[in-house]
C-alpha cells in the first residue's frame, strides 16, 4: 500500500507539473499521438471498409488480414521499424497505424453489412444513386458500428503508445521506463495510473458518442451490439 501512497504523492507533486517532462505535457503528447494515428489509420481503413461493405466483395480478404494482423506482436513491429528508421516517432506512427487499421476496417464494413437488405433495396427503388445510398442510408445506419471500431482502435493505440516510449522520448510511457530504470516505483506507478485513467476517460467518451450517433428513428428497435448475430429475444 505504501507504494500507492508514494505514487499519489508523485501525482500531486508540483515539481511534476513544470518543464518538458510535466505530466500535462506528456498527456498532451500521448493524446496528440493517439488522435493523429487514429486519423492515419482511418484514412486507409474507412474507405476500404465502406467499399467492402457496399459491394460485399473482398470480405474474406479483409477478415483474413484482420486476423493475421492481430497475431503480429506490436512490440516486434515497433522494434523492427525503429531499427530500420532509427530512434524517434516514425516507428511508433508506422507500427500503431498498422495496428489500428483492422478494428476500424471491421467497424466500417460490419456497419454496412448489419443493415437490413430491404432498406437498401427500398432506397434503390425510390431512385437513389449508389452514391446517395452510401451517403444517406448506409453511412448513418452503419455509423454506430464504425464508431465502435474507432473505439477499439483508440483503446489499442492509447495502450500501445505507452510502448512507444521504448523507442522514443515520448508520451506517458516515459515515466514507466524511466522509473523502471532508476527503480523509482512512485514514478512508474504514478505514470501507469495516468495512462489507465486516460484510457478509461477515452472509453467513456466513446461510449457516449456511440449512443449519440444512432439515428433517431433507429434508436428504438435495433440492437447496437453487432455481436448479436441473431436477434436477441426481448427480455
Amino acid at each position: 500500500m505504501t507504494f500507492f501512497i508514494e505514487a499519489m504523492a508523485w501525482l500531486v507533486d508540483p515539481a511534476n507539473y513544470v518543464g518538458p517532462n510535466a505530466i500535462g505535457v506528456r498527456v498532451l503528447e500521448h493524446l496528440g499521438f493517439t488522435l493523429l494515428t487514429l486519423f492515419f489509420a482511418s484514412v486507409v481503413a474507412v474507405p476500404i471498409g465502406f467499399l467492402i461493405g457496399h459491394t460485399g466483395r473482398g470480405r474474406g480478404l479483409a477478415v483474413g488480414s484482420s486476423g493475421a494482423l492481430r497475431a503480429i506482436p506490436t512490440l516486434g513491429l515497433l522494434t523492427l521499424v525503429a531499427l530500420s528508421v532509427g530512434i524517434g516517432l516514425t516507428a511508433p506512427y508506422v507500427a500503431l497505424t498498422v495496428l489500428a487499421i483492422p478494428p476500424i476496417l471491421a467497424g466500417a464494413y460490419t456497419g454496412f453489412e448489419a443493415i437490413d437488405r430491404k432498406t437498401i433495396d427500398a432506397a434503390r427503388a425510390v431512385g437513389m444513386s449508389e452514391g446517395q445510398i452510401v451517403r444517406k442510408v448506409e453511412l448513418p445506419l452503419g455509423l454506430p458500428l464504425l464508431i465502435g471500431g474507432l473505439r477499439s482502435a483508440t483503446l489499442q493505440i492509447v495502450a500501445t503508445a505507452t510502448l512507444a516510449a521504448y523507442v522514443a522520448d515520448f508520451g506517458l510511457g516515459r515515466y514507466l521506463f524511466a522509473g523502471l530504470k532508476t527503480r523509482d516505483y512512485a514514478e512508474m506507478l504514478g505514470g501507469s495510473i495516468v495512462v489507465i485513467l486516460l484510457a478509461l476517460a477515452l472509453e467513456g467518451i466513446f461510449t457516449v458518442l456511440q449512443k449519440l450517433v444512432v439515428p433517431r428513428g433507429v434508436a428504438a428497435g435495433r440492437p447496437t451490439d453487432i455481436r448479436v448475430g441473431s436477434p436477441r429475444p426481448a427480455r
Partner: protein
Amino acid sequence: MTWIWSNLDLIWDRTLDHVLVSVPPIILSFLIAVPLGWVAHRFRLGRGLVLTSVGLLYAVPSLPLFVVLPFIVGTSGRSPLNLIIALTLYGVALMVRVVADGLASVDRDVRQSATAVGFSEGTQFWRVELPLAGPVLLAGLRVVAVSTVSLTTVGAVIGAQSLGSLFTDGFQRGIQAEIIAGIVATVTLALLFDGALVLLGRLLMPWTRATQATGRATRTAVEATA
C-alpha cells in the same frame, strides 16, 4: 540468417517460456468467464454490473497493468505469475461478453422445449445452452488465444522472459534477424494455438461442421468487436 542458425537454442528456450506464460491464461480465462458470463446472461442486474466492469477492465492498457499488478498482488514484475494473472484478466474481460452473448443466442423455443421435457435449470445449462453456445464460445476463445500470445511479448520490456525478449534484445543490440525471428515465432505460435482450438472444437462439437457458414459469421462478429 546466420544469427538464427547459431541461436536456435535461445529461440527454443524463449518459445518454451512463451508457451508456459500464455497457455494458463487462455484456459483460466475460459473457466472463469463461463460462470461470470452465465450471471450476466441470467440476471438483468448482473448483466449491467458484470459487462460494465469487464468493459472497463478491457480498457486498461497492458503495460501499465503489468507494472501496477505486482504492487497489488505482491508478485514480482519479472515473475511469470504476474504476466499470467494480467493476461488472464484480459482473457476474462473478452470472454465474459462472448459467453453472455453466446448463451443469449440460444433459441428461445429450444430453451422452452428443454424446460417442457423436464430439464432442470442446471441440466439445461450443461446439456442444452452451453453446447449450443459452443461455436460462439470457440470463436471468442480463438480471439483470446491469439491476442494472449501476442500480448505476452509486451512483458519483455519489464523483464519477463518470452519471445518478446528477442525484440528487446534485438533492438538493443541492433540485430534485425533476431526481431524478425521473434515475430515469426510469435505468429506461428498464435496460429498453432488457433489451429489446436479449431481441432478441439471439431472433436467436441461434431455437429458444427454441417453449419460452418453460421460459425464463420459468428466468428467475424466476435472479431469485429474484440
